[in-house]
């Protein structure tokens, strides 16, 4: 009834090529962004910001980056944790070693270093595909683990190999309070999400998708596989690298290489698969599912236990959390193999016919 494009006529190509051609979508998205910038900061507590929203935003950004590579260009990567680590350590080195380095510039430079690293480890993608490529990118993971544990220069000669940052500020505004951290992450996420949405709609995005769907056919119609694959690696690693730098700088503030272990690479890949491959929206759903659901379960289970009069032990909660979380993943993948984003678009489709479905 409400969600219908009847009567919205497009008279120019420009109007037809918008990100959201349907007016309701446009308004809904503007409302969501406005709420995220204005309403959420007014309503949230410190815990909400620091433990839920900030990791959710940063992981969404990382999943967005991985989605470009895996979902749009079809190159399965298990090296995302390494790209995050390179972003974080590169930004750290620029930030600490160059006096007066602004935070935003350090983040961008970190992203660029991750991008270069991504291109380097993307080279095998020109020869190997699918699962073999996943194994090849795993090498990036082990290489980065080794590099940041062994080469002292990268960790600024810290005796324990753990690094930390402090005194962050952007344009003279200190990034200390949870709200300022949240707003910084949100702004970066909003800009990069808009950028990637436009990239995947444009010529380059179509090249990526052509390569994903059938690389031989794509090269026959004149798409250069090398260019398309390596740009996907570069763009994806840049975004993942910025997310890694934010994860280190904003969320952890002090970190060791174990913070970017192979577990994180797997988690990011799961976010993309569960959220929906080849969908910008999917990155947000996937990050929400992987980041927020375990924390929710962890807090909800003891309350549930109390209601039925059982005191659940700490280990019990933790085990139950893993069991429920695991079964939910399996259930979602069986019910909707295309991810949560597909559920979202099915929901929208249904809403168009509501309340008179044929």
């Amino acid at each position, binding site marked *: 009834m409400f969600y219908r494009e009847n009567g919205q006529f497009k008279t120019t190509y420009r109007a037809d090529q918008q990100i959201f051609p349907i007016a309701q979508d446009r308004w809904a998205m503007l409302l969501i962004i406005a709420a995220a910038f204005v309403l959420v900061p007014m309503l949230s507590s410190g815990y909400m910001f620091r*433990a839920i929203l900030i990791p959710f935003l940063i992981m969404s950004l990382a999943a967005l980056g991985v989605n470009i590579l895996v979902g749009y260009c079809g190159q399965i990567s298990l090296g995302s944790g390494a790209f995050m680590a390179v972003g974080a350590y590169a930004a750290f080195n620029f930030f600490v070693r160059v006096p007066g380095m602004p935070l935003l510039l350090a983040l961008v430079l970190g992203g660029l270093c991750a991008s270069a690293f991504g291109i380097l480890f993307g080279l095998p993608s020109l020869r190997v595909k699918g699962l073999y490529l996943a194994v090849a990118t795993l090498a990036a993971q082990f290489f980065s683990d080794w590099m940041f544990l062994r080469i002292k220069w990268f960790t600024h000669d810290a005796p*324990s190999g753990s690094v*930390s940052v*402090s005194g962050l500020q952007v344009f003279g505004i200190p990034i200390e309070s949870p709200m300022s951290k949240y707003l910084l992450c949100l702004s970066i996420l909003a800009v990069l999400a808009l950028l990637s949405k436009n990239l995947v709609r444009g010529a380059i995005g179509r090249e990526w998708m052509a390569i994903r769907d059938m690389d031989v056919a794509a090269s026959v119609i004149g798409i250069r596989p090398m260019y398309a694959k390596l740009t996907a690696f570069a763009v994806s690693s840049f975004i993942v690298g910025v997310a890694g730098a934010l994860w280190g700088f904003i*969320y952890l503030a*002090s*970190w060791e290489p174990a913070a970017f272990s192979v577990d994180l690479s797997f988690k990011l890949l799961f976010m993309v698969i569960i959220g929906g491959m080849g969908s910008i929206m999917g990155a947000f759903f996937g990050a929400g599912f992987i980041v927020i659901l375990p924390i929710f379960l962890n807090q909800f289970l003891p309350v549930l236990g109390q209601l039925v009069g059982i005191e659940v*032990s*700490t280990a019990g909660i*933790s085990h139950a959390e893993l069991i429920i979380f695991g079964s939910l993943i399996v259930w979602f993948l069986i019910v909707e193999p295309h991810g949560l984003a597909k559920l979202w678009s099915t929901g929208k489709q249904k809403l168009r016919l509501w309340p008179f479905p044929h």
Partner: protein
Amino acid sequence: MKIRNIVLASVIAAASAGAFAQAKEQFFPGLPYRTGAYAPNGVPWANGYSDYLKLVNAKGGINGVKIIYEECETAYDTARGVECYERLKGKHGGATVFQPLSTGITFALTEKAPGDKIPLITAGYGRSESQDGTIFKWNFPLVGTYWLAADVLVQTIAKKEGGLDKLKGKKITLVYHDSPYGKEPISLLQERAAMHGFNLQLLPVAHPGVDQKATWLQIRQAKPDYVLLWGWGVMNSTALKEAQATGYPRDKMYGVWWSGAEPDVKDVGEGAKGYNAATMQHGAEPNSKVVKDILAMVHDKGQGTGPKEEVGQVLYMRGAMSAMLAVEGVRRAQERFGKGKWVTGEQARWGYENLALDQKKLDALGFAGVMRPVSTSCADHMGSNWARVHTWDGKKWNFSSDWLQADEQVLKPLVKKTAAKYAEDHKLTARTPADCQS
């Protein structure tokens, strides 16, 4: 009817929760790891910690102020630990003190604690340089750091050889967990190696440490005189089994306290006989009074957290001792800010900085024979630099050395230097004497 009952019940529950909040009980949060790769070591520690707090409550609390204890499982994951910290820090009127029990989480919380004004106790682990309280105002590596452990182990080896000067030309190999935890002792050992002219070989083992064939092959080739083990969890038993397989004498192996508890050796049993490890003021003391008290007042009442057999074991004692230090800091703070009153994290910090646990107090608490007196100050957040070494006889741990004191001449410059570097990186200035009084 049913809905009304539920509503009534929840209203009563909420009201009683409110009443509890008014009574102001001292809240001690816990960040244990009872699951994951390191659970075998994490569980006894957490049980000891929780049992000791129960014992304090059974004895009437801290001058009448009861303790609330709540755990949040971290599984040794730094990101999860940070979430747990954020979740617990504001509960029940505010957390008194955090004990992160993980080097990674300690590093992350070191950046957050000053802003939240909550002290961190990292008894025996964490940043070794945080001993310098003039720079690390909120960190308390009470009764020991990894540097202290390494120093004591070097001294023990020297004693066995007949003096520090006899170490010249000896070969000592450090087999370590490849993480900030495992790397902590390296700078101290290098310092000592330069002083005494022994040869230090560094052999990292990747997490989780089940694959050490290559490491022990290198040891077989190099034939070091001694092996120091900075391992953890499954890495320790693997190392001991590999030592057995390569025929390296176990009595020439020395572990840090994370490598010297029952879970580390019991799978190897007889094969680990003669293996030594440092204990930092804890250790299996099944006959001490505190153990008997816990058994009588907690376990016999059916309130024990874990199995009864583990009470008095090495890591259990470590947990109980850490809890005792946390409680005694609050008791000390009450002396200044009002006896029998609830103290804030900031006030508790003063208590930890001015701990004065003499032998008489320790005896009264039941820790006679377990540990030595502790007294902290603004400049020294460690409070005591004594440790002992114990040896596995195939069935249990026995103390095999007297109390050994770490050499301040070696430790202090290193602490000063590293803390100064931290201060420089973070643009911190050392606390003034006036600030020390506050």
